[in-house]
């Protein structure tokens, strides 16, 4: 037995089913050992997508997604994927091969200081110098990645360490980390303060972020909202916490959110932020919005509280536990008038009309697509105008909405959807991207084919990097710079090349029929949706 076998055994102990990656010499001992395991390997076509695919797995399963790539360019290529996971607090365990320990620091072939390079995008990283430490390190890595505020952990494995002969294997039962003890339960005194504020408040609002979903606290939150009839808005990462049609849900906040959601935040006298960073796209002026209100900030990461907005009542803890604790409290506020007011704002809202005649209206398309999808389907939105149209119009029931919210990494949707489908083969998974983001990840169509993963991909095509074009429209008076996607491939031919069924939706009147055909297709299918090149999200 060599250390690489030990690594594989550790992954088995952690219940890992799939490893996404790309081999190279420096990680070959591991990829040789994994042949003797039930764990399946998925060869992505570029390393960044290994991290996105693993992110899809993590978001579907509650467990860290796992990637394994080689040293040097393999390791540096995966950094964007790691950073994407870090920004959205997605648990990953990333194994990177490394050159021989004795050569470390001498700039030999395919050597990169990956632990140094990735430091600001990981929760923790290890450079393994002693094979005997592998079980402890892997045990710790999974624990760190998937507890507290979740995130990626990287383990750098020099090839000689992987090849070290090992006599026996024992996986530790527990971790001993004196420096890491995340606070899970909310402080009882702070909980009481929240209750007092809820009793006093006339216009409370809950703003739910991705942390609610990461803590699997969506059911608790829905129950809490239903019991006390408190209105809820969400951030982009919080989409799916509440069903879209729930009478207490008032949409996504932020500069790309619903005006009535932002109005609800502005007119509230008490904001309860749960698992949200208060980042600029959601709350552009945190100091203004909290000036005349009480802000309760619930987050598992104490550093998020008070970072972007000064909170009146900080409450550190896991959203799941904190809401459970809040459920045990007597709260006698009556917010019926406030809910009526917000409902009237919502009803008065007139959605944007998109598209000139002869193009598909992306808002109608997203709405109809998500309504036609199964109740618990997974909608994976990419980044760009397609993301904003998706966020604004997706109709959530009990499904999931996955996207790269924090980092805004183009090309996320196809590999993430592939990972989600692998993790949950019985669920309907649809990736919606633009023609820009599609071309950043279209090589993964081959990965889907190779591993028998039926993919459903929508490409909203406008021939532009639409989000940037829109910015240039407003900021530079239509002086477009480097946003045209001329030269893009014929998607019908491309689909044929990859053996995907191809559908083209070019007219509003065909929306229902094409969506129906798209969703009914059993194999992999790509639907091109032609929207007005000059459409704006605002």
């Amino acid at each position, binding site marked *: 037995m060599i250390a690489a076998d030990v690594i594989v055994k550790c992954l088995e102990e952690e219940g890992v089913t799939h490893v996404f990656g790309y081999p190279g010499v420096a990680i070959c001992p591991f990829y040789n050992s994994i042949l003797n395991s039930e764990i399946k390997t998925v060869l992505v076509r570029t390393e960044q997508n290994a991290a996105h695919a693993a992110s899809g797995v993590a978001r579907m399963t509650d467990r860290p997604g796992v990637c394994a790539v080689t040293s040097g360019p393999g390791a540096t290529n995966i950094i964007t994927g790691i950073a994407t996971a870090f920004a959205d607090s997605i648990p990953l365990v990333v194994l990177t091969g490394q050159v021989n320990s004795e050569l470390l620091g001498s700039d030999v072939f395919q050597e990169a200081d990956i632990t*140094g390079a990735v*430091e*600001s995008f990981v*929760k923790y990283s290890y450079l393994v110098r002693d094979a005997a430490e592998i079980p402890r390190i892997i045990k710790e890595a999974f624990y760190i990645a998937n507890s507290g505020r979740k995130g990626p952990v990287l383990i750098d494995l020099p090839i000689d360490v992987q090849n070290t002969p090992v006599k026996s294997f024992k996986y530790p039962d527990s971790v001993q980390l004196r*420096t*890491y003890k995340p606070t899970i339960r909310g402080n009882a005194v702070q909980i009481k303060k929240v209750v007092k504020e809820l009793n006093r408040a006339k216009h409370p609002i809950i703003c739910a972020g991705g942390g609610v979903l990461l803590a699997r606290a969506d059911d608790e939150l829905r129950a809490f909202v239903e019991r006390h009839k408190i209105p809820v808005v969400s951030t982009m990462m919080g989409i799916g916490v509440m069903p879209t049609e729930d009478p207490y849900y008032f949409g996504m906040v932020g500069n790309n959110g619903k005006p009535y959601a932002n109005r609800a935040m502005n007119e509230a006298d008490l904001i309860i932020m749960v698992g949200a960073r208060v980042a600029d796209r959601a709350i552009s002026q945190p100091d203004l919005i909290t000036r005349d209100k009480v802000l309760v900030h619930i987050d598992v*990461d*104490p*550093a998020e509280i*008070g970072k972007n907005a000064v909170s009146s009542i900080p409450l550190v803890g896991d959203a799941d536990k904190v809401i459970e604790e809040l459920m045990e409290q007597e709260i006698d506020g009556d917010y019926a008038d406030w809910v009526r007011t917000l409902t009237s704002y919502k009803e008065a809202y007139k959605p944007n009309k998109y598209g000139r005649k002869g193009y598909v209206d992306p808002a109608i398309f997203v709405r109809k697509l998500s309504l036609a999808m199964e109740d618990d389907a997974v909608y994976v939105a990419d980044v760009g105008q397609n993301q904003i149209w998706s966020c604004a119009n997706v109709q959530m029931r009990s499904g999931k909405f996955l996207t790269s919210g924090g980092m805004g990494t183009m090309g996320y949707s196809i590999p993430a959807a592939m990972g989600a489908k692998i993790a949950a083969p019985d669920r309907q998974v649809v990736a919606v991207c633009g023609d820009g983001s599609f071309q950043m990840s279209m090589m993964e169509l081959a990965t889907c084919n190779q591993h028998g993963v039926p993919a459903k991909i929508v490409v909203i095509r406008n021939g532009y990097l639409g989000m940037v074009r829109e910015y240039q429209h407003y900021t530079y008076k239509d002086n477009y710079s480097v946003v045209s996607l001329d030269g893009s491939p014929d998607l019908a031919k491309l689909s044929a090349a990859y053996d995907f069924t191809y559908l083209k939706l070019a007219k509003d009147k065909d929306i229902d029929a094409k969506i129906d055909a798209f969703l009914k297709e059993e194999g992999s299918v790509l639907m091109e949706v032609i929207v007005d090149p000059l459409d704006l999200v605002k």
Partner: protein
Amino acid sequence: MKIKRIYSVTVENRSGVLSKVSGLFARRCFNIDSLAVGETDDKLVSNMTIVSSGDERTLEQIEKQLNKKLDVIKVKTFTEQECISRELMLMKVKYNKGNRQEIMEMCELMNASIVDMSLHHMMIQICDTPEKIQLMIRMFKSISIVECARTGTLALQKCLESEGN
């Protein structure tokens, strides 16, 4: 308003920890006024004394972000009044017959000592509060400093009766 704060940070004595901590300051645009690192009585543990300044919110963020680092065991923060702080400086100065006596008198006044000497140079050592070190530099600017090296501030919280046994 800019406030000065001292962070006494105990960390795991592992390679790369210093760069993780200093990288955190650089990345989040926190100031480092001074940084001193060394092993403690436990060779598995190092202590970093970091002096920083900023508004109250920034100073709070520094503490929280330091606490997030998995190699950080404990973060203590205090104001200058709450701790004893010391800095060590070695300073090489050029002297001549005319000012030798003056230098020696100044060293005596400042509680500094001359630790090395050649025909034209002497090395002075001073261990004192950061303010005194600053003053020492000012005093010797007129005499001609050849070079000097400072440790950065080391600080520990003052001994309190409430600390117990």
